[in-house]
């Protein structure tokens, strides 16, 4: 790469830094607070080795959690507990941050036509990519170092602390590299981000398969996933720094590939060229409903495939859960207490369905907030100046957060039911149970949708913020609530904690009806506001 490729990089870095001056600190703060808070609460709640051993034998031995959060290596130290709980989780969050940020400042800018302004100035053609990678990688490195400092300050060993911080950061690095490649491939920001998220989802699932396999299973799957590498650095339990070097080398290789691809394409286009469309609208394209279906179908299909695979992977792990427990007398007691083999499986599947519910909430907020993007982009105005009423238009979009969100957990439940039922031999029962367990998640999702629409009606500028904050809040309560031993008053705020933990428990209709009613009330109020307010 010639020296001119770097022209304009400092200026662009400053511009991007300025545009990210709110978002990046929020990401960093949330992750730092999660890791530090987890370590601190382990330290205060499980001060003695004896209490930690009890914890490790209890919820720490729950194999479902190994699948979902990563494999524990040493649960007798505060550091080891923190790694188990926050390592893969933190790396995944940083990966999300990387994908969103890299996409926003490269492909999305190009698509909006703003990059032409920059490209016409004295900036190299790869300057935006270099600038955003510099900012993202640098920020995440610094965050990793600060995590290390915080853990050392809490009294943990130096080497393990910094290794944990950097392993989390490296999860972000690798996916900054992945996003750097996907933004070169298509000429459309939404599909570029979708592609990168698909890679992240696959990485998570491949690691889950590896971590969920018994000794005879394909444990090597963990090594196929960058999130698995991030876990396999094993901080405080061997401190394998060389795995971190692997992550750094992988990042470098991905970024090098991204620049090679970028050099071969024109500005504004992707490696995959845009195809021409039909010259006239087909018979079906005659209503706002058909229009929003056109806009949403690809996205819904992507989520459906992802959740089908996700459900199938999580389901297929279920019957090997028991093997992971080990066979000490203590564990056997626990085993019995949890209801034997089927009890443990059900507890695991309930946790998995709960996570599916949270994932579907992300889909719901994404599609509900789309209404606001349509409005600000100026595409709503021409529609409302035809014989289309506001409520009719809103309904054409709300189909997806309301009904799409019901369809997706059913698909995930069906995937889990087929995979689990196929292996355990009671396909019919498992299928019915898991589809049901998936479907009831939608009531909690509806509450989040209601909040988003409420914001859309009365404070439209805050639509996305309110929606994503609600989801983020639910995820954090779910993740941290049990560890921080938060009072039920607080964890019960999350609608997802109100969903019965099926399969394995009797599903009572009361909380489901209550949440549906709450979601409907919020939604209707929001729509009343939308009908009365100015557009634009």
């Amino acid at each position, binding site marked *: 790469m010639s020296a001119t490729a770097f022209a304009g990089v400092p200026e662009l870095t400053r511009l991007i830094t300025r545009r990210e001056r709110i978002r990046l600190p929020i990401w960093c703060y949330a992750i730092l607070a999660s890791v530090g808070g987890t370590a601190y609460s382990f330290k205060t709640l499980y001060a003695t080795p004896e209490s930690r051993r009890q914890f490790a034998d209890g919820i720490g031995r729950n194999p479902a959690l190994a699948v979902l959060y990563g494999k524990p290596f040493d649960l007798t130290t505060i550091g080891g507990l923190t790694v188990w709980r926050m390592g893969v989780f933190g790396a995944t969050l940083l990966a999300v941050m990387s994908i969103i940020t890299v996409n926003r400042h490269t492909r999305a800018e190009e698509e909006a036509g703003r990059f032409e302004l920059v490209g016409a100035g004295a900036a190299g053609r790869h300057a935006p990519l270099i600038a955003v990678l510099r900012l993202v990688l640098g920020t995440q490195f610094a965050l990793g170092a600060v995590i290390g400092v915080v853990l050392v300050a809490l009294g943990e060993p130096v080497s393990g602390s910094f290794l944990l911080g950097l392993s989390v950061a490296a999860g972000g690095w690798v996916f900054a590299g992945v996003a750097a490649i996907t933004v070169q491939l298509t000429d459309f920001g939404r599909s570029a981000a979708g592609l990168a998220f698909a890679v992240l989802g696959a990485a998570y699932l491949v690691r889950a398969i590896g971590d969920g396999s018994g000794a005879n299973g394909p444990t090597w799957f963990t090594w196929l996933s960058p999130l698995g590498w991030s876990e396999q650095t094993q901080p405080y339990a061997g401190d394998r720094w060389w795995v971190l070097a692997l992550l750094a080398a992988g990042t470098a290789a991905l970024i090098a590939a991204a620049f090679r691809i970028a050099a071969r394409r024109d500005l504004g286009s992707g490696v995959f060229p845009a195809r021409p469309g039909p010259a006239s609208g087909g018979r079906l*394209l005659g209503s706002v409903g*058909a229009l929003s279906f056109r806009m949403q179908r690809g996205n819904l299909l992507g989520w459906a495939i992802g959740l089908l695979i996700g459900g199938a992977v999580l389901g297929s792990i279920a019957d090997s859960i028991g093997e992971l427990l080990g066979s000490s007398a203590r564990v056997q007691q626990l085993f019995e207490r949890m209801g034997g083999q089927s009890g443990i499986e059900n507890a695991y599947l309930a946790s998995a369905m709960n996570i599916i519910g949270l994932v579907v909430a992300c889909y719901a907020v994404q599609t509900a907030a789309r209404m606001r993007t349509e409005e600000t982009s100026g595409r709503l105005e021409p529609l409302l*100046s035809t*014989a289309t009423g506001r409520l009719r238009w809103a309904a054409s979009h709300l189909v997806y957060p309301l009904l799409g969100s019901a369809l997706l957990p059913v698909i995930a439940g069906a995937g889990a039911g087929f995979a689990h039922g196929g292996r355990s031999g009671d396909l019919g029962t498992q299928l019915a149970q898991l589809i049901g367990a998936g479907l009831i998640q939608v009531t909690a999702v509806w509450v989040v949708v209601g909040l988003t629409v409420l914001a859309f009606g009365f404070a439209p500028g805050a639509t996305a913020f309110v929606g994503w904050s609600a989801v983020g809040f639910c995820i954090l309560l779910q993740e941290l609530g049990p560890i921080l031993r938060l009072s039920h008053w607080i964890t019960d705020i999350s609608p997802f904690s109100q969903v019965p933990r099926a399969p394995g428990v009797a599903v009572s209709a009361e909380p489901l009806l209550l949440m549906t009613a709450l979601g409907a009330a919020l939604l209707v109020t929001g729509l009343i506001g939308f009908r009365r307010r100015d557009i634009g």
Partner: protein
Amino acid sequence: MENIIEVVGLRKRFGRTVALDGLDLAVRPGEVHGFLGPNGSGKSTTLRVLLGLLRADGGEAVLLGGDPWRDAVALHRRLAYVPGDVTLWPSLSGGETIDLLGRLRGGLDAARRDELMARFELDPKKKGRAYSKGNRQKVALIAAFASDADLLLLDEPTSGLDPLMEEVFRQCVAEERDRGRSVLLSSHILAEVEALCDRVTIIRRGKTAESGTLTELRHLTRTSVEAELATAPPPGILETLPGIAALEVRDRKVRCEVGTDHLATLISALSACGVAALTSRPPTLEELFLRHYQDDLASAGSAGSAGSAR
């Protein structure tokens, strides 16, 4: 027959910004009405109130005999709108967009659509995100012209069109008028308004400054006259004529401006001296326009809050 658009004393504010401050506007059936004003004077806001996208704070607006806010859906079947800044659906082709907008309005004329696409030289197969600004504008214009609407609301529709396409646009507007449709054309391209419009309304900081036919508006201003006379005019004659201004007499050459109502008096005074050559130029729309905004330009710094376009 009553007016297609009747707006009286319309008010709208956005927070502390006053966008419309008692605007009046009347569009008669079958006319092309020019809606003139500089950027940020409230043209788009007016159109958006008429479309029921914004709710007015005060005043009255009647569109096609109905209330633009309450009867929005019913009224929209009878009108077509072209926004100033057209954004298309990125994954829809231009042809699909035109058909969709037409169908949502209650149907469009397929033959006319194809004819317009040929005249505007639009490639209907491109996806929305691949069009340039001018081509996006064409998509919206074709959708509007191919519809069966009584009223066209056009908000600076030619920004981004090249001169050839601008000419096609003018022909299309003339055809619409011939078909008996009414057009409200918001613009700041004066030549376009001068060529197309039967009547114009000039707005300034959210208020109507002037309204009428171009001839009527010209009566309110002065015509510039240059004459070469056979003999030098006797001193004191021209100076005392009514409505005269900026008089310069150099030997047999006279240059002056005169109120359009008093043009006849000046001509007869000049011909008394024998006219060798005479040019008289009516004020251009540009001069009319500038006259209204000259004081704005002077106080531009302090009046920057006169309202943004949206």
